[in-house]
């Protein structure tokens, strides 16, 4: 077991930068998710760690020794990195046991030891009785378990997951998530998990690296990402956060400051050392918006849409004088808002997004 270090890694395809100076340190035994919309460069990152792509700049090292620099590239077969692919990539001409035992056979492990270790790996993923089956005769979840066992049997220093649940249906996803978490707990393997599904990343990972357009946006724990996004992209990407323009009125005191947003004065959480400034942005969540009865503190506007979702309705709201801004929140039953209604809302809390350039 060993950690993974990605330092200033850049990947150029012709003129475009698929990855731009990405640095991530993964601790030994950590479960780190890389999250981002499609095309953000996360798959390229995984392929570089595995050795299928070379780096254009920076370095990647596994367990303290360099594997990728612009000058040299340790070939994939020498890296001791396991991969679980989205489409499982099980070899159809081999049985389940042969698939799992492949790495050992290649390494020249004796037959008896091979059989014992394959058996142990099958047991680890609860597939003991399936050793003689053909991959074609397994369900999607079973195939993914075999793929997991296959990459574990060689005791890799690092396991890469490439959107392993994307091909499974919703129910299976939940149970496989549990299995992955459980598996990580038991083996303590260092895991890098690529996904575009934030719920999955939040449920599994110790820390999440959010990427966009080839850049690392923020690397933090799931809780911190949600409550203290480092920039507008993370704020709006995670759980559909709303980003609103605001003026900072007071300096930070005990992690809070006062801002004016949509004409309302509000105390929000913030980073230490924030000073009063104009043209700032705050992030607020649907749960931090509530309707105001009468003429209390808040702002007026009109309801543009109300979609009943069972037990509550999702209300979309446009404040007066801020036509570009769309707020949304849930109103539990009894739902009283309908499209076209006038209403008065107020924010209860929020997070002051740090000024650009202050880093992740």
């Amino acid at each position, binding site marked *: 077991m060993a950690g993974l270090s990605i330092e200033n890694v850049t990947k150029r395809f012709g003129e475009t930068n698929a990855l731009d100076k990405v640095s991530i340190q993964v601790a030994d035994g950590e479960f780190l998710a890389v999250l981002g919309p499609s095309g953000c460069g996360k798959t390229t990152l995984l392929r570089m760690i*595995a*050795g*299928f792509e070379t780096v254009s700049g920076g370095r990647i090292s596994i367990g303290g020794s360099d594997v990728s620099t612009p000058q040299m590239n340790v*070939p*994939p*077969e*020498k*890296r*001791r*990195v*396991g*991969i679980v*692919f989205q*489409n*499982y*990539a*099980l*070899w*159809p*001409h081999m049985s389940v046991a042969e698939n799992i035992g*492949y*790495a050992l056979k*290649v*390494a020249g492990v004796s037959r008896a030891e091979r059989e014992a270790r394959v058996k142990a790996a099958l047991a680890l993923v609860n597939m003991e009785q399936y050793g003689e089956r*053909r*991959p*074609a005769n397994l369900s999607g979840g079973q195939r993914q378990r075999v*793929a997991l066992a*296959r*990459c574990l049997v*060689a005791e890799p220093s690092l396991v890469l997951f490439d959107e392993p649940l994307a091909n499974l249906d919703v129910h299976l996803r939940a149970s496989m998530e549990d299995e992955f978490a459980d598996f990580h707990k038991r083996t303590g393997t260092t895991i890098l998990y690529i996904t575009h599904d934030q719920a999955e990343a939040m449920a599994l990972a110790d820390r999440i690296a959010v990427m966009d357009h080839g850049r690392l946006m923020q690397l933090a724990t799931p809780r911190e990402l949600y409550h203290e996004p480092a920039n507008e992209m993370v704020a709006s990407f995670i759980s559909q956060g709303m980003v609103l323009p605001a003026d900072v009125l007071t300096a930070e005191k005990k992690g809070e400051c006062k801002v004016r947003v949509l004409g309302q004065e509000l105390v929000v959480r913030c980073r230490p050392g924030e000073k009063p400034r104009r043209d700032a942005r705050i992030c607020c969540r649907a749960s931090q918006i509530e309707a105001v009865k009468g003429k209390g503190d808040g702002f007026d506007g009109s309801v543009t849409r109300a979609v009943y979702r069972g037990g509550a309705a999702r209300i979309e709201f446009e404040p007066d004088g801020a036509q570009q801004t769309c707020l949304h929140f849930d109103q539990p039953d009894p739902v009283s808002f309908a499209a076209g209604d006038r209403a008065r809302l107020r924010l209860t809390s929020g997070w002051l997004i740090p000024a650009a350039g202050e880093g992740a």
Partner: protein
Amino acid sequence: MSLVRKERQGQEMALTAGIVAIIVIFSLLPMARLLQEVVLPGGSFSLDVIRSGLVSNTTWVATWNTLCVGLGGTLFALVMGVAVAVLVSLSDVRHRQAFVLCFVTPLMIAPQVTALAWLQLFGPSSPMLNMLGMAPPIGTPNPLYSPEGIVLLLGIQYAPLVFLIVRAGLRKLPRELVEAAQSSGAGWFTVLRTVILPLMTPSIVGAAALTFVSCVGNFGIPAFLGIPANYLVLPTLIYQRLAGGGPAVLSEVAFLSVLIGVIAMVGIVLQDRISKRRDFRITSTSLPAAPYQLGAWRVPVELGMWALIAVILVLPLLGLILTSLVRGYGVTLSADTATLENYRFVVFEHAAASRAFLNSLYLSAAAAAFAVFAAIPLAYVIAWGKQRWIKALNLAVELPYALPGVVLAIASLLLFLKPMPITGIQIYNTVWIILYAYLARFLVLAVRPTVTGYFQLDRALEEAAQVAGAGLFTRMRTIIFPLIAPAAIAGGLLIFMTALCELTVSALLWSSGSETIGVVIFSFEQGGDSKYAAAVSAIMVATTFLLMLFASLFAKRLPDGVLPWRD
């Protein structure tokens, strides 16, 4: 309303009837007639023909020889075809397109032309060896007049076939299956040995079966190389028997041709067995794996590949051209002695040769045109039809081509030896019997690309026309024909190229006045006039190149994989 519906049903029935008629006339009838001759000679059940065939020693020798050169040629073609396919598909060699074009070209050249070209390279009269002063003394036999020579040429002729099939398989290999093995610690050669080649089993075995059938049924190469050495295989044995005995020996050669058919079928059945033994289905689709970096080996490998092209394509064609310029036997070729006299002779002077140019032109044009128009409705039913008998239909169309050409030629002979019933028309000993055999044999070459074309079309295009009220024939004419025509015409062009130099069928069916180019080349060579044979062959090779060029011009409008030489 019901009138309209009746008309619709009428059109569909007409389509079905037409297709059934084509299948019966060009596939079922000749095969049935052949079998009848073997087990029901003269109308009553008898095993005499089989018995007398089986006790004959010549039969056994020829069968053994057929198996030897068939297996040898297949093995050689497999090794070369698979190796080249792996290098072209999985490594970072450059100039792929040009290489594939050159490597596949031998497949486009008729086998007897290949044989003739190679013969000109060796032996005492080789103009090239004479120019270099390296020719063996006169009287030394040409080393290619041997079973080894036949195996070598069969391998070169059919390696492109193996290449095309395996390359198509490798293109579908998803990169994850390779990468999973790499990250399991397997080096490149281990991945090739344990993952890539095993996954290619269906392609490789399929290619082996097809090559075996082609080798076993090949007439041109063993005729040019085997007959002078008195090394007979079944097709050449049939030819000799028929040439010597005429229609009297028809029953006997019918048995021999069924024997070839059986050997070919065993090959196909074996292929089916092996492919089904394991699961090779690749279900996921993905990008192809990154090409293997040959590094320092890249230039040597590239040089080796082009050296291969020089040996299998450039040198033989050079030998062919040099021979066609020679003034006479024994005259050493030089700038002073080179002459175009041979070309003038075969084109303008030799009556049979000039007749043959026209005959072959008409025959292949007619076969191609008929096949294009028959293929469009046939492939329509095969690709889009829902009926259960469609699989059988496809098989029936494939059969006359899958079986060696000799089998079909003998079947045609049997069918038309006597005047046709009712009409009393006699087509035996005319050019029409060759046309019939060509139609039956080559139809599938147009049907295959057309079926591929249909699969790539969105059926909604036709359904939209149907909703708009167009009947079946109207849809065929206005919607389907314009969309599918390029694919069908490309198939027609393949037929034209194949039929133009065809020898196997016409060698058994020709008569004075209905010579084909293949027959003329063969007769010249048999009569010792290699220079004339070379001149005719050189003209044909040039024609083939021109046709390939012409077809490539509209390659963009064709479905992928229709033109075999386009990578």
